[in-house]
């Protein structure tokens, strides 16, 4: 195997973070579509990871997701984020109805510093191929789509928020704010599949109000 091929196949920390953020973007979009939080007319299908995923065309939502996920991508590179949570709340009562946790595990925790990570990745990546990662992501998004079958109907006006659980010494960027974690009383949790880019491991958990 030549070096160029190796480079083509390997995933850098940046690439991994980008992949994870892409997963988050399409995951969140498909949740918003599947859970009917915004009207289906504002969504358009497009192919990603070999799937037709509905993405929102609402400028407010897209800009919000872009800013938040851009920041998250930065934090992923800096290993500052533990978990990203999509919270679906009832607008009128402010009650948390549903919660999607995307837990991030850094698989090469032993090594410190970006440079050493990159080196470590090079050795690991040989086993982890871009296609397999995409396949894993595809599986997870399929599962997300499948959750509609058992999740309770959201029959009230709902909205969503994205919380990021970061390390304590993380700087708070402009227009960001510290907030409280959310809890769902009497909740039911369903763990979905997880995928790994050999740098980041994503666990997806949905918890919903047990009625």
């Amino acid at each position: 195997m030549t070096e160029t091929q190796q480079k083509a196949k390997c995933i850098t920390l940046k690439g991994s973070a980008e992949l994870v953020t892409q997963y988050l973007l399409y995951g969140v979009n498909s949740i918003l579509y599947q859970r009917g939080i915004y009207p289906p007319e504002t969504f358009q299908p497009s192919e990603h990871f070999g799937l037709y995923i509905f993405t929102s065309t609402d400028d407010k939502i897209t800009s919000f997701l872009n800013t938040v996920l851009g920041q998250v991508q930065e934090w992923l590179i800096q290993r500052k984020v533990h978990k990203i949570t999509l919270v679906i709340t009832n607008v009128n009562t402010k009650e948390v109805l549903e919660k999607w946790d995307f837990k991030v595990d850094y698989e090469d925790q032993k090594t410190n510093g970006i440079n050493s990570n990159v080196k470590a990745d090079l050795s690991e990546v040989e086993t982890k191929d871009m296609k397999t990662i995409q396949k894993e992501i595809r599986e997870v998004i399929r599962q997300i789509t499948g959750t509609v079958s058992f999740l309770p109907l959201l029959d009230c006006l709902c909205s969503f928020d994205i919380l990021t659980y970061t390390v304590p010494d993380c700087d708070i960027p402009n227009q960001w704010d510290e907030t409280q974690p959310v809890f769902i009383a009497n909740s039911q949790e369903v763990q979905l599949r997880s995928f790994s880019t050999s740098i980041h491991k994503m666990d997806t958990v949905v918890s919903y109000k047990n009625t």
Partner: protein
Amino acid sequence: MDDQDPTSVINMIKDLRSGTESYRKSIGASLRFSGASYIRTKFNESDDSVISPKRQKLNESDTSIINQTQSDSAPGSPWEWRRMKGEVISLKTRLTHQEATVQQLHNVRRQMEEIFEKEKGLLQVQVEQDAQTIQQLEVRLDVARRTIQDAREAQAIAEKEWSQIRNNLEKKIASLLTENAQLSENLKNASTKESSSPLQDTSESNELQLKLETMEAKATMLEGRMKDYLKVQQDYELQNVELQNMKIKLEKLESERALWEEGKMLVGRAARANDLEKELNVAKKTIAVLKESVREKLLLEEQMANMTKRLEHTEKVEQQVAVLEAKRSELALRLQEYETIGIIGGPTAVKRELNRLQQAEVDLRAEEGQLRSRLDAVLRESQNLSKNYENAKKLATDVTSSKEKLNKLVSRLQKKMILVTRERDSYRQQLDLYEKEMTVDGNNAMTERIPALERAIDGYRDLVNKLEADLQAVETGTKKNECNKLREEIEQLKGELEHRALKGDFNCNARVLHFTMNPSAIAEKQAEEKQAALLREVEELRAKVGSGNYGATTSSLQIQEIAELKQTHEIKIARLKEAFKASSQEYRQACYQLFGWRVDRTKEGYYKLSSQYAESPDDFLFFHVGEEGVDMLETVFSTNLSSLIEQYLQRQHSVPMFLNAVQSDLFSQQTVTNVVTSRKLTELLSRIKILREGNVEVENRVEPSHSGYPTGDVTSRPCSYVPRKGRPVCPRRAISIALFGEGTVTVIFISD
């Protein structure tokens, strides 16, 4: 007079100055005259101009002196008077000196002039002599020229003669040559004559021979003459050469003569030149003498200046000498002082003394250094000793303190000893007492009691051991139990934590961040605003209700809702319309396909029917369906169907049957009854190709409305076949084909 006094003095000074200036000028001029030998007239002029102002000035100074003498009678300080007098005297002496020098210079000049005049006269004489010699030489030159001219003339005459002679001779030669030629011709003629008549002319030949001989004699004679002439010519040439030689000789002689003359002149001149040179030398000597005298004078002046300078210098030196003498005396005094002190022998002794002293100093220094080093060593030692001493002191203090403690201890021990001794004494006393008692009770009791007590002690020891073992056992058991319990608890808690983490609890050392302008926050805000607005409205309405006013209270929200409702209804209506249109279209299509009639509703109750099998779109029927029944209206097509109308409408009063009859009639008119299916289309298409190759002309006459299907554009192609009836086969594929005629394909329309 008093007033004029200072002015007179000033004038005097001025005069003096001007006088000196003029004197200088005059001296400059005189010097110049002495140095140069110029024209006499200039001398005279300058003499007058130079001398005249001087005399005037002298006169003026005399007058001023007179004035002065006059002023002297006036009151004035005797010192001043004396000074003035001295000045006057000095000036007078100067004047006399100057006059003498001037006269001397004049004399010198006169002498010079005389000498120069003499020289001039001599030179003029010499010039005259030279001119005479030149004239003589010119005369000689003229003579020589004349002789040369004569010689030339003679030469020219000789040349002329020679040329004349030569011409004559040449003429003679030419005449002889012609004669010779004539004779030779004659001779030839004679020979020819002789050959023609050799025998006849023997006499003639003799004569001729004689003639020839004479002629030959003549020729020889002429040749001799010729030789003479040549000799003459050679002589002439020789003469010419001689002449030229003579000329050269003449020139040489002339040049010799010129040289001789020049030599003569030079000899004369040389004779004179010696005298002149002598004179010149004398003059030069005098000039040199004069120059030397002038130089000496200048030298003397310079010497004078030098002498004055030297004098000044010597004066200064004298002063210095005096100073130095004073110093010397001082120094001598000092020396004496020194001598009195005891330093005898001059500086060498002093130096020696100094050296000795320096040596001594050096020695002392060295000693000092040694001593210093020793001192340092001693100091160090002393420091060490002091340290040692301090240490020793400390030790001593420690020792003393320990000694004190020991003393105290000793005292305490002594006290204790005293106490112990007392106790001992008391115990002894007691013992004595006991012994006394024992002696009374006996030793049995003691012997029994000790083993009993020992046993009791053993028992107690066992008990203690047992209890300790029990305690240890108990302690270990409880700890293990506790540990296990705690572990279980930990696991439980971990599980709980995991569960809680699943539920959304998070690690406390994390930070939860979110974007402030998130959708839920916005939505919540909007919801809150809406709620607030609603509350406000409720309040307003309540207030209105309270006041009893039931006016137009349609709120903006209601209006909005109504508008929304309206919009949704409109959308619904539009959708329904679309659905209706589609279904009606479908229905119509179905009708058309099933019954073969296209029904168009033109007006209310009026229906236009056109058959599927109609020949043209103009063939249609018109019906009016009213409450009282169905009425058929007349059309162009209906006029052709009078028999059918009569049969079905007028007799049987059945419109459907009439329509069926019309349909069947139209259908029967068609020759081809078989329906072309899509399966046959390919076959047909192949035929079309063949037709096209055979230059088929296609005429487009079928219109989409007539065919009954939206066939789209039909392009026209030249075709010789004219269709009578058309029936589209596959309108969806934009290909319309009509098949008519006697069982064969007649016309085919294909849209591209």
